[in-house]
């Protein structure tokens, strides 16, 4: 059974039809990259997967949690789905470790001691074991984004969504964040990422989804998508 399955997902913002029936399947442990021009609906799709955007039609099922236009248990869904944002969105009034601990203690009622241990472990995993007590504004963009990844991972999600997580970074900081993502991919974390890093998408993805005008225009293994694009839109896009 696939870990993530969407059927006929539609979303409209006023007169603007952003998602026009998205069918997407992601198996456990897969890395899926969603590529496409801005306005193609890829970020909206990603945000629909954890309920940040409601959907107008269709259904989403993630690790047994079912969401459709009428029904959504967002708390249960979001416990299965982690998300990392373009702008990091760390909590500025909390230290790196407190950022990672907060939802564990508040939502999962994990003891502070255990949450601390998990925070330490997650921060080490993203190479920031030494920044335990640093506040976000004492960290570089790349470091902040890695804390954001640690914060999402600490909730032990079944799938991690990454929304253009290197787009706000200075070029020299992109590598350290992609390095973390790559190591997650190797550890069989299920990842769905919207990205503009084509070379990276090609290197780590099991599947690449090309979105165009609110539809999945083409999808397949990276060699196929990047090597033998079958539509003229994709060919134009990857040029």
């Amino acid at each position, binding site marked *: 059974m696939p870990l993530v399955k969407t059927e006929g997902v539609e979303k409209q913002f006023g007169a603007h039809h952003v998602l026009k029936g998205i069918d997407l399947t992601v198996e456990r442990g897969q890395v899926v990259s969603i590529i496409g021009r801005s306005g193609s609906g890829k970020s909206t799709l990603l945000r629909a997967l954890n309920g940040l955007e409601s959907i107008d039609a269709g259904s989403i099922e993630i690790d047994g949690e079912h969401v459709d236009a009428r029904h959504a248990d*967002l*708390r249960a869904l979001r416990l299965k789905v*982690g998300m990392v944002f373009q702008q990091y969105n760390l*909590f*500025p009034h909390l230290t790196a470790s407190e950022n990672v601990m907060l*939802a564990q203690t508040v*939502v999962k009622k994990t003891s502070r001691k255990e949450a601390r241990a998990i925070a330490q472990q997650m921060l080490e995993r993203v190479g920031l074991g030494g920044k335990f007590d640093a506040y976000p504004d004492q960290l570089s963009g790349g470091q902040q984004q890695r804390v954001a990844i640690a914060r*999402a991972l600490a*909730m032990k999600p079944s799938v991690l969504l990454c929304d253009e997580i290197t787009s706000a970074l200075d070029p020299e900081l992109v590598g350290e964040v992609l390095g973390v993502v790559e190591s997650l991919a190797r550890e069989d974390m299920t990842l769905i990422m919207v990205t503009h890093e084509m070379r990276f998408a090609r290197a780590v993805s099991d599947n690449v989804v090309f979105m165009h005008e609110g539809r999945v225009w083409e999808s397949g293994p990276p060699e196929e998508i990047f090597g033998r694009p079958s539509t003229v839109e994709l060919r134009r896009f990857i040029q």
Partner: protein
Amino acid sequence: MIEFTFAQIVEGLLLAARWTVLLSLVSFITGGVVGLLLLVLRVSNSRLLRSLVRIYIEVFQGTPLLLQLFIVYFGLPLLGIDVSAWMAATLGLTFFTSAYLAEIWRGCVEAVPKGQWEASASLAMNYFEQLRHVILPQAARIAIGPTVGFGVQAIKDTALVSIIGFAELTKAGTQITNATFRPFLVYGLVALIYFALCYPLTRYARALQRKWHAAR
């Protein structure tokens, strides 16, 4: 005419000033608690609750405090509810203060970036957890300056309750003036006492703001 020494005048005013301080504290605390409740409803997802609170805020911001005091003090007894001057004063000031604080704080909550709501929602926090742990702590830092600023205003506004006969500082000033016929001296002293109450608060607000500003 009764003869008052200067010391007696000052003593009389200072004793009355205790009521001003108490009234300010009580109305600020109850107004703050009610204001926080209003704030939580004002930024909630329910359209009905949001508009109800908006109406409350607009009514109490859009009418003079003096009239609100009149309505509570003279109006409620007509409905068979007995209110003392103290009760009327704290009630009126609580309505007024809560409306203003809720609106000041709403601005502060809205100054917290949308990404903070989204990040905390993505971590499966519910609305109250988001407010409690992520949004309000950040909004509070923004709110300190304007809140203390409003507190100063609220102290001065307590002078209005002298009209309904509550014997706070301004009322005492009037009574002593009536007995001594020395309005310039007495009201001057009253003004000085208000200033002595408000000025440290203003300084404190500025210091707090600088401190939070420096500490991010």
